[in-house]
């Protein structure tokens, strides 16, 4: 942890913007409130952004849970580098409160006013290390024009010597910037310092026009992400319990387990308690639900969240009043602000990490952008990452959410084979798979209200299916893990030529029995991949997202599974006159 000298700066009311208060009342949380102690240590005082949330101390705990591991530690990036990212992004997004906060913090860390002004004007001319410039280039792109952000941007940063750990921290810091900016707008944070004249931005962000989208880039984690299992890693177990599966945005951050712990902790503080908004209301904000079929007050709540997420310059106290007129009290509105800010955080992470959208970005594509900043000729032409597939189940899902239960039966009919095969693939037992179908579809029905996103319904359903099956494996304590690392070496031994037309050797029923037996004898981790990819023909990215795997990992399993099945079938199909030769070590 890196602290700042105490009492060097302070957020006195005399420095506030004309003595105005934020939109929410402040209450005394005591002198030993741990998050405030941490903020004092690392900012030198408690910024008004956090004091404005004291009506709900638990949400400040959520803020602190995220900020501490992301910002207050020197790891791949230093605190100063991360403050630099936060400062540049806040300035680029015209957020006066946050740019002032980070400006003052950087001064305390030793930066001169001149150097900071140069960062805003054009960071390329600033006296910064090449790696810091590379990180700024990356995060400015992610934080100001995420729709054109692509793996090409990461590759370029990588080519300048930034390791995956650096890139992950940079992306997390950009996400944190979005969270802090949304919070400051939503709570109406008043400046902790006297206003300063900002230099004209001529502007570093014009660099965004240097980038071109890599059309057709596939989804998949952009950074190395070692596998973690919900069975061994508590935050993943928590997320699986809450969402029915581990959303891929979390699977993509396994390089930093402490961050995942912090994110799970923040979700726990914000999502679970129902002393202000209900869990359903918060899930709708977090998952970007549609306003259709909602009561008037809940529609107003989502409109409020949408406006805040878009950093609409017209967002003001009148938006708070609109919610009050719809029956929401101060605590509920504060929680709406915090939940929206959390959604913003995950939105940036999802884009930056290339996580498949099973945890959809709220109101994707609607975010209002200042075209002058990003120099985009047409945002529609530049969408690269969010290649939104048409979901053939979308209408049916909407009908179910509208109360038409018959449409749920239709969804079951459409997907029963896929669900069954996935369950067979993991459980290795057709009878148990039939039994588990009931759990799977009931869970899907139960969580359907939180689904409305950009992920395909089929992908989402396969994720639920997978997790239902894994849960069963755990309950029966059959430790056939889907996550363990590869066996030492797999050496194909049956390398004798096969007969030209294997299917003429057996009847169709015999053939089916042979192959089904071969598939069932595969270890579960290969069996399920083969079933999803080769039998169900699920796109690679969707199967990877459903199983919480990265693309390289799922491809490795597919190869191993295919070779093992080939090995198992070989004795039935080899030409009897041929003799084997050597094996091949993979």
């Amino acid at each position, binding site marked *: 942890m890196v602290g700042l000298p105490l009492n060097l700066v302070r957020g006195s009311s005399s420095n506030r913007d004309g003595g105005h208060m934020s939109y929410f009342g402040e209450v005394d949380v005591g002198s030993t409130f741990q998050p405030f102690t941490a903020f004092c240590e690392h900012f030198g005082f408690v910024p008004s952004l956090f004091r404005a949330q004291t009506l709900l101390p638990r949400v400040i705990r959520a803020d602190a849970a995220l900020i501490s591991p992301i910002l207050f530690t020197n790891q791949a990036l230093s605190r100063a580098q991360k403050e630099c990212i936060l400062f540049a992004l806040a300035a680029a997004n015209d957020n006066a409160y946050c740019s002032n906060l980070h400006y003052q913090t950087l001064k305390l860390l030793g930066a001169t006013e001149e150097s900071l002004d140069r960062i805003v004007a054009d960071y390329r001319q600033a006296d910064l290390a090449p790696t810091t410039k590379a990180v700024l280039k990356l995060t400015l792109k992610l934080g100001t024009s995420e729709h054109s952000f692509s793996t090409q941007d990461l590759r370029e940063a990588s080519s300048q010597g930034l390791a995956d750990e650096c890139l992950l921290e940079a992306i997390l810091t950009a996400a944190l910037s979005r969270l802090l900016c949304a919070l400051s707008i939503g709570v109406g944070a008043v400046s902790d310092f006297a206003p300063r004249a900002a230099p004209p931005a001529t502007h570093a962000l014009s660099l965004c026009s240097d980038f071109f989208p890599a059309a057709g880039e596939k989804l998949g984690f952009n950074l190395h992400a070692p596998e973690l299992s919900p069975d061994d890693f508590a935050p993943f177990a928590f997320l699986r319990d809450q969402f029915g599966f581990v959303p891929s945005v979390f699977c993509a951050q396994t390089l930093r387990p402490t961050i995942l712990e912090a994110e799970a902790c923040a979700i726990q503080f914000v999502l679970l308690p129902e002393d202000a908004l209900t869990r359903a209301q918060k899930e709708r904000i977090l998952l970007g639900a549609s306003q259709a079929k909602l009561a008037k007050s809940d529609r107003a709540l989502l409109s409020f969240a949408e406006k805040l997420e878009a950093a609409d310059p017209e967002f003001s106290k009148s938006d708070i009043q609109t919610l009050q007129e719809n029956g929401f009290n101060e605590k509920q509105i504060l929680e709406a602000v915090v939940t929206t800010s959390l959604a913003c955080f995950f939105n940036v992470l999802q884009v930056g990490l290339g996580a498949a959208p099973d945890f959809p970005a709220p109101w994707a594509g609607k975010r209002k952008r200042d075209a002058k900043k990003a120099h985009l000729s047409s945002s529609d032409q530049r969408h690269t990452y969010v290649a939104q597939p048409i979901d053939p189940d979308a209408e049916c899902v909407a009908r179910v959410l509208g109360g038409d239960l018959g449409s749920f*039966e239709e969804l079951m009919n459409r997907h029963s084979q896929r669900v069954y095969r996935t369950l067979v693939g993991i459980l290795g037992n057709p009878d148990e798979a*039939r039994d588990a179908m*009931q759990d799977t579809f*009931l869970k899907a029905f139960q969580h359907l209200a939180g689904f409305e996103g950009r992920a395909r319904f089929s992908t989402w359903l396969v994720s639920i299916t997978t997790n239902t099956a894994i849960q069963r494996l755990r309950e029966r304590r059959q430790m056939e893990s889907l996550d363990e690392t590869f066996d030492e070496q797999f050496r*194909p031994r049956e390398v004798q030529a*096969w007969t030209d037309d294997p299917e003429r050797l057996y009847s169709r029923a015999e053939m089916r029995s042979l192959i*089904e037996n071969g598939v069932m004898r595969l270890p579960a981790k290969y069996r399920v991949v083969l079933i999803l990819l080769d039998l169900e023909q699920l796109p690679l990215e969707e199967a990877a997202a459903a199983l919480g795997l990265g693309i390289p990992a799922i491809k490795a399993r597919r*190869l191993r599974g*295919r070779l093992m099945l080939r090995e198992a079938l070989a004795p039935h*199909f080899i030409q009897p006159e041929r003799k084997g030769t050597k094996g091949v070590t993979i």
Partner: protein
Amino acid sequence: MINCADFVAELDNYLDGDVAAAVRVQLEHHIAHCKTCTVLVDSTRKTLKILTENGLFDLPREAFEPIAEEIMARVRTKEK
């Protein structure tokens, strides 16, 4: 020059036609001279064909109907 292990590492991509032209040339040069890898390619391709064309793990309609009825009964109970 690539060896058998290199070839096997690229086998999936090769079968799926997902390799760059330069890599494909090297892979094909290898199998032209390696009987073992020729067998691997041929037998893996046949494995995939019989895996995908035999209607594996089908759940018969009559087996699914009672399951669906039970699920819908519970769904309707939850909605009440």
